[in-house]
């Protein structure tokens, strides 16, 4: 998977958690809580979804690493590459 694939996967799970978000309007630097309005339950559901889909466990302390699509694609790529 390329970083573009990770971005697509992230956006897909993001919009599954928050179906009213149009993925076409999400910017690379949009903050999932401050800009897109996810609350702590949404973020947890997103982390669960990414865990199920990619098999990676994002610890609470690293939730900041998926705060924007740009951060998340880089973070997910590195986690998967590290065999997490």
């Amino acid at each position: 998977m390329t970083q573009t694939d990770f971005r697509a996967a992230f956006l897909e799970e993001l919009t599954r958690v928050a179906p009213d978000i149009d993925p076409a309007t999400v910017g690379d630097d949009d903050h999932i809580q401050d800009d897109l309005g996810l609350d702590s339950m949404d973020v947890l559901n997103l982390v669960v979804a990414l865990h199920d889909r990619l098999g990676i466990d994002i610890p609470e302390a690293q939730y900041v690493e998926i705060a924007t699509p740009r951060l998340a694609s880089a973070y997910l790529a590195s986690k998967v590459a590290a065999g997490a």
Partner: protein
Amino acid sequence: MPSLGADMETGTLVEWLIAPGSRVHRGDTVAVIETQKGAIEIEIFEEGIVHRLEAALGDDLPVGAPMAIILAEGEAAPSDDAARTHEPQAASGPAPLAAAPPVASPRPSVPPATTVPPSQGGAAASPAARLRARELGVDLASIEGSGPNGVIVLSDIERTGPGGRREPQPSPAGSPMTEMRKAIAAAMTRSKETIPHVYLSHTIDLQRAIDWLAAHNREKPPQERILLGALFVRATALAARDSKDLNGHYLADGFHASDMVNPGVAVALRGGGLVAPALMDAPAMTLTETMAGIRDLVTRARAGRLKGSEMTGGTITVSALGESGCDMMTGIIFPPQVALVGLGAPQTRPWVVDGTVVPRSVVTVCVSADHRVADGRQISRFITEFETLLQRPEAL
């Protein structure tokens, strides 16, 4: 048509989950209606066999209107069958769908502990999706949902609907959000007009709870992690059990304390709006079950699949601002309840611990209560108990 709130006047039938001949049991979901607060699943509180459906899909029915005739075991069909009278409560005594029972009645409906149950029958869809489907004349049953648990969301309708995707249009009057704001306006205005609110607030050291939660979650896969909000709901449920004057309903004949504690959990809907479905009999749950219950409520609130009993069964409300933001909220009581526990976002503040000033995470709780029922002393006792519980998170 049951009343799902004091300000509800009508509801629109959008789905029948039963048919003539169906056997129904107390607590079964029998229909879905659209209200100002979105689509709500209607439960039945009678046993029997469905004799006849009185209401048709799309009917906008006033509260109290008969929706179906249910016959008890061995009961003869009403003699007016041929005439198909629409008078409520036919003399022969077939049971109309009952509104939710009073809060004090025993009801063993504890939400499932770990998983979100699949909705019973019918197509689960968000309120916005339902409305759009109706506008476009799309049959929900023909659509495969892409939302959580297969729930049909707006984009599914847009994709399938005649003419395909359309440009977003300005919200017409009567859009789901406009209706939701109307419902909130009516309830909050009534609350402020009729309930003499009294407010007590207190700032609580939250460091132990936050540290405990971080350590707990570090060991757990995401699925089993617990949010701070679950601690607040759990502490509210336990404290309310011992505070009879804050837990119940204020009706026309005065205050009725509730034996059961069903905290209404305020859930902000994305795009605006607010609902506070009840977590039934919360004191009987573990913390893990409380978290699962809240997650289930939030998921269904957003998908438009709350139950009627959850809309009316709340006995006290918990409203938390979340992880970041302002430090205090003085909330408005959700009638006919008599108390609301408002929690600001936790803040790091200088705090005196054992005579030394140290940085600690603190949270300010503000309890709004009905002064016709409770005085400062009872509210203060509740808050003290709430604080004590949060100092021993491992015991929650």
